């Protein structure tokens, strides 16, 4: 137990009467970077705020490095948080923003400044220290907020969608830097996002959250290759995974046994082959979206619409007939009723 960086034990939370987290159990290993992934309203931010102590725990316990912090006030939990809005003090320079946490904890001014400079240098904002937030760009503010979180050397880092306010190019760059930073510091981190790419790239493990419940906890590989539920399967991946009832229009090649309609077959758009070998299911191309090198072809099979990712150079034209084939190895099987993965 004491080995864990963060443990949530049957934690629930509510806003007034609306429950947003339901008896959540979660364990983050020491030094691990856990990404909490989920759609808006899944309770991701509440989870983070609850760990930080900014939101009350309705039931359950929160432990940070084996220490029960459930009833401790935020300042006594030794966590740092990077807010989505960065929450920089507009009237203070970047340097004073970074030293704030040290100064209110009675670290001497000189020592605080020295540590702030070191923290700023480690995230590449040492040249911005004299400026105020109003004079900084979004990316620069983000770095200052990061330096402020680093400077105190907390037990736990909390990131609340810190990349969502950056433009796409900067987001990719910063994502890489965050990962490198985590590898260097090795501090337990919880990073909340709704961006699946961010989650897959950054995470040691991903916790997929839906309506206040944990859908799946696993490495990015596990989340991608064996999604535990239909929800995870559809939420991670773009375009989303195709789902058709077993025994329906698509019969995967090499399927060992026939499955009834109580099972759902899932396969990713890149697993769909359009080459007409004669054995595939007949379909009509309804729409084709070209995304650079890729094309997403939407195929109509009776009542079902299936997406295939094909090279843009070999894309079919709308209205063309096509044949759809999928290999059994690429197929995930789910229970149609519960949405749970069916092990094979």
């Amino acid at each position, binding site marked *: 137990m004491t080995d864990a960086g963060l443990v949530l034990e049957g934690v629930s939370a509510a806003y007034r009467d609306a429950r947003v987290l339901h008896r959540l159990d979660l364990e983050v290993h020491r030094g691990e970077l856990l990404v909490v992934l989920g759609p808006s309203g899944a309770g991701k931010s509440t989870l983070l705020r609850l760990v930080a102590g900014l939101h009350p725990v309705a039931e359950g316990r929160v432990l940070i490095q084996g220490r029960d912090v459930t009833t401790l*006030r*935020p300042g006594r*939990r030794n966590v740092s948080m990077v807010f989505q809005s960065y929450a920089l003090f507009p009237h203070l320079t970047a340097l004073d923003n970074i030293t704030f946490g040290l100064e209110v904890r009675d670290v001497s001014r000189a020592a605080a400044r020295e540590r702030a400079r070191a923290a700023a240098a480690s995230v590449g904002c040492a040249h911005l220290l004299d400026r105020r937030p109003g004079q900084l760009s979004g990316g620069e503010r983000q770095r200052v907020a990061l330096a402020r979180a680093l400077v105190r050397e907390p037990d736990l880092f909390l990131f609340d969608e810190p990349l969502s306010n950056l433009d796409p190019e900067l987001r990719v760059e910063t994502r890489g830097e965050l990962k490198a930073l985590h590898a260097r510091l090795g501090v337990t981190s919880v990073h909340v996002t709704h961006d699946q790419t961010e989650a897959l790239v950054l995470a040691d493990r991903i916790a997929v959250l839906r309506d206040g419940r944990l859908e799946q906890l696993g490495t990015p590989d596990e989340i991608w290759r064996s999604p535990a539920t239909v929800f995870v399967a559809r939420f991670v991946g773009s375009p989303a995974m195709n789902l058709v009832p077993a025994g329906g229009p698509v019969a995967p090649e090499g399927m060992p046994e026939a499955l009834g309609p109580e099972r759902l077959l899932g396969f990713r758009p890149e697993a769909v082959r359009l080459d007409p070998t004669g054995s595939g299911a007949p379909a009509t191309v309804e729409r084709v979206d070209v995304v650079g090198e890729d094309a997403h072809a939407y195929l109509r099979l009776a009542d079902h619409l299936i997406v295939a990712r094909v090279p843009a150079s070999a894309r079919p034209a709308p209205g063309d007939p096509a044949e759809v084939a999928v290999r059994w190895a690429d197929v995930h099987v789910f229970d149609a009723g519960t949405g749970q993965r069916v092990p094979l």
Partner: protein
Amino acid sequence: MSTEPDRGHRQLRLMLAPYLLGLVVLVLGPFVITLALAFTEYDLIRPPVWTGTGNFTELTRDPIFRTALVNSLVFAAVAVPLRLLIALALALLLHRRAMAAGPARTAAVLPAAVPEIAYGLLWLWLLNPLYGPINQVLALGGQNGLTVFGRTPPQWLTDPADARAAIILMSLFTIGETFIILLAARRSLPHDVYELAALEDATSWDVLRRITLPLIAPVLGLLLVRDVIQSLHFSFVPALVVTDGGPPPYATTYVPLFAYRTAFEYLRYGYAAAATLVMLLLTVAAVAVQWRLLRRYGRFHDR
């Protein structure tokens, strides 16, 4: 291309016209007349007689005016900071959603909604040395009309120092507008900054000193300037209604009351205009000094 801004300007002028008209006729006109009258002797019956700077030299020698001027300055120096402080304290106390915060906010605003004369008459009763509630409360537990500590309760309407205190006391309750502005200013501050402070375990004193005060300082500065200008106004009615400029010798005669008496009771319009002008210049000087200080502070705030 050039017609668009032209049209905008025309519309702007049209919409500003009523205000500008009012400003010229009701404010600038009288101001210019006052300015001119300050250099004359005028009693409303005979035409004004040019006396040059005669009125001003007389003012410098007039002990009543000097008293009035000192009274006004002391009033502003004491009442304005106290008013701001109280309004700020109330705003910081009542900005959260809490039990009875709504009624408390209403109570804080209400005195400012009472018409000035009625407010004055109300205080005339409150301050009555014998049967006024204030002195009755002060005399609780004491004997022979003395306070618990065996001292005479303040003679609000008859002792010069107590009367000045009474006028200041009266002004401390009409802070509704200041309170509302500070309340709105506090509530518009970003929430996340306070959450961050909580994560850093900042004490409430640190939060007040390092976050709240600096962030609402621009608003406080503006209110300070406004209150200094206004302090001339809100000493007039109480002094007229409650203390009648007394008790002797002119303990609560402030410059506005001095000008009012000189003009409408002694019919010395020129002299009153000169007194008004002096007060105006002092106000302008005070505002200019504050403005410079604020500008220097404001540089840190440009976003």
